């Protein structure tokens, strides 16, 4: 075959998740440009096809068909689990690789060979989080806070399960309405329960405010946030209150210790004059990089070969750390860390203890 | 120069020609009555003079000023007030607020006299100062509409069927008062279905038929004209 190798991006370019969607689009295009500058893949150029699914299921189904018709061999996206779910069977039926940051268990439950989750699954993060909360910090009264999104409730439930498995105590599971900004009512209620830690599984735009409002209400409990809290804006929103917040994640775009990651973030900033909106930009970039690597290594664009390669490779050197995929397409092995936000807004890794030297 | 001079006025509603070229003049201190069957275009003429409708052709000149294309609010300021068809009182405002709005264009200090005059003319309004206009009976609203127009202390008063829905005794009172108002220097252009009373009151009259004036004459003459009798006065048949 000749002509360009087509790669799809299915992401929310407009709507509430537009920043994340546009970040994914930009990252994938950046990687494609870089590769094309080096002469492309197998001597062919890479062409990126983008489809805006607005984060909606019905649009996602249309996008999936659109991209399949465009002849893409792999699709990066979508950002939301709901949109990824609606598109998944269509890609599977057409034998198009799909790599997304969606972490809903339902994405794995159908056993599609074409699915590759590029973000760490909730289960792994939850296990790490529970261990940190119970074994490392010895918190006795933990309150769990989440929003209603599929991602955050999934993570919160997994964390609760693991805390209980570790014989910890969850004193309350409470909800916020994402984007409503006024979280003082639920925090006031939690304050009365005297927690020593509040774990929040939702997004940074809410997390930063929660941390700020905790300070305002005089809540002394430690704030522990899930991976979606890791964003430069978290510290800015929380302002002086940010100090002492703990965030659990693979290291974020700015903090990633790996040289490849540093180079990528630098190139991204140089090209777009802004930072990637979140770590999911990078996990999706890893999805793109893995697909490119598979094509290069197998010297093929046949889906079956690529899938086989991706399922069986021992370790992938990702921007977001070393990992591999199991036979369900679940990302295995992620270097979770717990950061503490410092007074100047920078992050310090507090667990696992950084190796000296 | 007449107070109001209308020449070849043409007004359309979409495709429908409601006025097909009417000309009319009203002299200062005159009372002029306009008669005509349903749908003849009387209301259309009144609304056009007030600037609520924009004519397709022709001109309206008031005291030498061309007001053909002036906005309704500007026309009021020139001294033309109207008591419109369908009353159009401000239903959720009180009787008093409605009356005060009638004097919207006048300095606040000058309205007290007009208010007294109106409340005296319609004692019911005085009794019901605070009632929401929308809950007044039909006739009470009609009184309010007339009173509100008087509050503007206009030089030209346009009345579109002022007697509509009013009790006979009130109608008689109003027609008597209109004479007084005219004598005090206000010019009146009145549209009436109660043709007999209107013609008795008026100096001159016009008869409008499907968008055109067909007759213009002295009111007394019209009152006795067989054509007008047959068409608008209903003869003496039902008087028995």
């Amino acid at each position: 075959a000749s002509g360009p190798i087509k790669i799809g991006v299915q992401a929310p370019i407009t709507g509430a998740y537009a920043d994340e969607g546009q970040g994914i689009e930009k990252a994938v295009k950046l990687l494609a440009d870089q590769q094309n500058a080096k002469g492309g893949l197998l001597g062919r150029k890479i062409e990126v096809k983008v489809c805006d699914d607005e984060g909606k299921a019905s649009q996602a189904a249309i996008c999936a068909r659109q991209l399949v018709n465009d002849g893409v061999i792999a699709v990066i996206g979508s950002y939301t689990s709901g949109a990824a779910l609606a598109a998944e069977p269509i890609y599977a039926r057409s034998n198009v690789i799909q790599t997304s940051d969606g972490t809903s268990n339902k994405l794995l439950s159908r056993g599609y060979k074409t699915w590759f989750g590029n973000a760490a699954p909730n289960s792994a993060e939850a296990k790490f989080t529970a261990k940190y909360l119970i074994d490392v910090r010895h918190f006795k009264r933990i309150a769990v806070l989440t929003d209603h999104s599929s991602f955050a409730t999934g993570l919160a439930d997994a964390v609760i399960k693991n805390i209980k498995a570790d014989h910890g105590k969850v004193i309350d599971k409470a909800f916020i309405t994402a984007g409503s900004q006024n979280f003082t009512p639920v925090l006031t209620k939690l304050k009365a329960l005297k927690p020593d830690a509040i774990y929040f599984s939702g997004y940074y735009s809410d997390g930063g405010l929660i941390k700020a409002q905790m300070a305002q209400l005089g809540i002394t409990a430690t704030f522990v946030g899930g991976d979606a809290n890791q964003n430069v804006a978290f510290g800015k929103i929380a302002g002086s209150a940010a100090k002492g917040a703990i965030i659990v994640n693979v290291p974020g775009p700015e903090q990633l210790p790996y040289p490849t990651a540093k180079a990528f973030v630098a190139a991204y900033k140089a090209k777009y004059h802004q930072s990637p909106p979140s770590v999911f930009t990078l996990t999706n970039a890893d999805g793109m990089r893995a697909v490119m690597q598979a094509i290069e290594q197998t010297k093929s664009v046949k889906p079956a070969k690529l899938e086989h390669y991706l399922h069986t490779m021992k370790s992938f050197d990702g921007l977001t750390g070393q990992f591999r995929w199991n036979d369900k397409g679940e990302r295995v092995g992620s270097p979770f860390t717990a950061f503490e936000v410092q007074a100047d807004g920078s992050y310090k890794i507090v667990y696992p203890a950084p190796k000296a030297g | 120069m007449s107070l109001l001079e209308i020449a070849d006025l043409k007004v359309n509603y979409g495709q429908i020609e409601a006025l097909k070229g009417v000309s009319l003049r009203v002299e200062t201190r005159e009372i002029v009555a306009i008669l005509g069957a349903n749908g003849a275009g009387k209301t259309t003429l009144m609304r056009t003079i007030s600037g609520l409708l924009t004519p397709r052709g022709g001109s309206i000149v008031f005291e030498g000023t061309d007001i053909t294309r002036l906005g309704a609010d500007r026309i009021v300021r020139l001294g033309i007030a109207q008591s419109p068809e369908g009353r159009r009182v401000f239903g959720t405002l009180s009787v008093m607020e409605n009356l005060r709005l009638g004097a919207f264009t006048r300095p606040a200090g000058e309205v007290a006299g007009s208010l007294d005059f109106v409340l005296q003319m319609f004692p019911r309004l005085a009794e019901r100062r605070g009632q929401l206009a929308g809950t007044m009976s039909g006739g009470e609203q009609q009184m309010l509409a007339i009173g509100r127009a008087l509050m503007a202390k206009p030089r030209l008063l346009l009345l579109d069927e002022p007697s509509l829905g009013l009790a006979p005794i009130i109608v008689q009172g109003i027609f008597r008062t209109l004479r007084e108002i005219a004598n005090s220097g206000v010019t009146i252009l009145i549209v009436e279905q109660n043709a007999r009373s209107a013609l008795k009151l008026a100096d001159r009259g016009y008869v409008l038929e499907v968008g055109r004036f067909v007759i213009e004459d002295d009111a007394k003459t019209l009152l006795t004209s067989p054509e007008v009798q047959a068409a608008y006065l209903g003869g003496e048949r039902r008087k028995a």
Partner: protein
Amino acid sequence: MSALLELHGVGIRFGGLRAVDRLSFTVDKGQIVALIGPNGAGKTTVFNMITGVYRPTEGSIRFEGQDITARRPHLVAAAGIMRTFQTIRLFPEMSVLENVRAGCHLRVRQQWWQGLLSLPSQRREEAELAERAHEILRRLDLDRFAHDRAVSLPYGVQRRVELARTLAADPKMIILDEPAAGLNDNESAALSETIFGIRDSGITVLLVEHDMNVVMSVADKIVVINFGQKIAEGGPDDIRNDAQVIEAYLGRDDDEEEGVS
């Protein structure tokens, strides 16, 4: 002759105002009864209580011997009373024909699902009722307006359409609130004829009207109210000469005096 409509001590208050006060009167079958009185006397309010738009605070209303006090308006309509409004209430964006056809609503036997399925029986019924509406238009000389939008019609025509709508229902009684308002003498004379025609077709008529020509020529009985209370009742001649009525309502118009002579 039995009373078709009976009001017994009916009253209503609006805040502190007693708009209607212990009012009683009857309307016999086949009669034309006029309710008159000064502005704000409570005439429209009486109509509103009869038709269930307002709920009386005291008294009772009976129709054909049945208590209809405070019945909801559609049930009053179903009992056979149709009305017009002082401020015309047509369906403004519908044609004259559709407005009149609307009056047939209570005559429709089809169920909603039959309509959705468009069964033959339903279509037959539709055709019959459409024909009926046309017939009434012809009767009231409205057929040339059949396809005009109601709101664009001159006032007087709108009044006639409203009347036609009540007739389409084939009611036992119609209640007309100032049907002659906005009509000139000729037109109101024609209206009187129409009202006679309606009465002759077996429909009882109750009306409010300020046009004394109409009232005096059509009414079999006149009930006069003031401040919500009955001040006189009787035939046209009694009323015309009743001092209290002249004082409160009729006044002394030169015209009227000429007429009485």
